[in-house]
């Protein structure tokens, strides 16, 4: 039973950690920009997945206009990106050039007849049930739909660093547990076994011989 609880807890924890990284780390899509638009957003319970108003503007208002970039991905499906400042808060992309990126995206539009492909760096998820969109970070032209996305050095570096920290903590914790906690637990168990033995023996004295 305890093992099951430990497994469920462990899997939940690591799935959450993985989700945070998958959401936050940059990814690249090869797309054809079909259009750009802006739309007023009344952000509600999906607020977690939206950034904030442009830096310097009033961020306390309930609703605001958000830029969007509509695309068709090289693999065929459509993808809509939001285009928002992340500013000084999480995730730490420090993006302030939302309007410039929107100008680039508007300039990058192309039709299916004369396609021009772009690599969009973005973070975040598209989810229709929560109305959330990945946030576009940058746009650069590529030769065609099969263009390479490049090796994600930053992601490799961050994940390796995270792995090293986790491993360091785990090793130290294990060493600490073996040195301090396990002997204590064993002592308690031994003590308990001894005590319960005494109780059984005492109860035994009441039984008929």
């Amino acid at each position, binding site marked *: 039973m305890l093992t099951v609880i430990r497994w469920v807890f462990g899997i939940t924890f690591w799935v959450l950690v993985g989700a945070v990284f998958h959401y936050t780390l940059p990814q690249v899509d090869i797309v054809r920009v079909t259009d750009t638009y802006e739309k007023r957003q009344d952000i509600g319970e999906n607020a977690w997945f939206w950034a904030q108003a442009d*830096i310097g503007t009033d961020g306390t208002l309930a609703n605001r206009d958000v830029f969007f970039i509509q695309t068709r991905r090289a693999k065929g499906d459509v993808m809509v990106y939001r285009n928002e400042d992340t500013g*000084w*808060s999480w995730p730490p*992309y*420090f*993006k*302030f050039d939302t309007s*410039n990126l929107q100008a680039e995206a508007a300039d990058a539009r192309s039709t299916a007849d004369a396609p021009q492909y772009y690599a969009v760096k973005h973070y975040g998820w598209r989810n229709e049930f929560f109305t959330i969109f990945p946030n576009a970070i940058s746009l650069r032209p590529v030769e065609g739909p099969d263009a390479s996305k490049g090796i994600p050095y930053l992601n490799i570096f961050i994940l390796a660093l995270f792995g090293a920290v986790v491993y360091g903590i785990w090793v130290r914790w294990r060493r600490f547990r073996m040195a301090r906690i396990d002997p204590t637990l064993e002592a308690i168990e031994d003590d308990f076994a001894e005590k319960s033995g005494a109780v059984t023996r005492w109860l035994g004295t009441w039984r008929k011989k």
Partner: protein
Amino acid sequence: MIGFIRLVVMGFVALTVVYVCLSFYSRAVRRSKLRKKWYDGKQLVDRDTFVQRGLERYDGSIRRKLILGVYVVPMVVVAVIIYLTNFA
């Protein structure tokens, strides 16, 4: 602006915790190294004086000032990210 101030204040607090821990740790390491050196050496002065002198030299050393990198490195990283995201 509020976001910027919040980042700076929270970053400063977090990095100060790291800085204080690291400087105590570094000083403790230096102290134990000095003790070891005293045991291995000729022991011309008593141990506490030897360690004290060594630590005073450590206090003025570049090695100790390098711990200030705890503040400098994240600031440089942030500046680089801002440049790459917005201007590159």
